[in-house]
């Protein structure tokens, strides 16, 4: 099981690196919002991995909070995005 945890952590780290690359590189602010949404999803996945690995349930509230933050953030930025590139 420990090996699986390391494998999952490695895959998540690679995915996080790609998403952060797009967040830094993204030509428009919408690309950055999208990439940061994916970063939040990966953080939530990492929280679940932590819960499964250490056999506790402390992060469930954080999971809901993270999805709420992602929703509010992307909706707010998309609402106020303007035409200039």
């Amino acid at each position, binding site marked *: 099981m420990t090996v699986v945890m390391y494998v999952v952590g490695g895959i998540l780290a690679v995915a996080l690196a790609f998403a952060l690359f797009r967040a830094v590189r993204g030509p*428009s602010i919408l690309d950055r919002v999208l990439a940061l949404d*994916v970063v939040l999803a990966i953080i*939530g996945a990492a929280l*679940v991995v932590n819960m499964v690995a250490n056999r506790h349930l402390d992060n469930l509230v954080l999971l809901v909070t993270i999805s709420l933050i992602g929703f509010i953030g992307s*909706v707010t930025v*998309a609402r106020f995005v*303007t035409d200039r590139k």
Partner: protein
Amino acid sequence: MATDVVVAVLMIGGALMSLAAGIGLARFPDLLSRMHAATKPQVLGLLLFLLALAVENGTWLLVPVLVLCWVFQLLTSPVSAHMVGRAGYRTRHLRRDLLTLDELDDVVARAAAGEAEAHESPQPDPAAGTPAIGGPVPVDPAVVDPAAPRAPGGTGRRARRDRA
């Protein structure tokens, strides 16, 4: 042992969803195609991870909380994706040469045409009314006018943004 295997498979599947989203974000050429890639870990990846957590814990008490978490994500992610996609379409953050079909373009063109017609047609109406009644006519356009330009004003800005 069996639960360990199930948990491992579910978690690796969820992690691969995240990896697919990361690769898609880095490689895809367009905001809309990147949005297509970005929704995988938000819904399916989260579902797989929550299933792994439920199987690993093995209690039914946990299930309502996990369902709440997943349903919340399921309700919010289409809304935010809709907002981002609409903002991207309006500010032309998309490559039209990659689109096979743009249904919204027809709708916008038709709305712009209909709005131009509607903008011209109310003009003769008060003019036709003017000779008939002398006194109250200056009042009538004043009442109608603020309402008339305001309604097309919203769509007009949208249409002009797309056309420009």
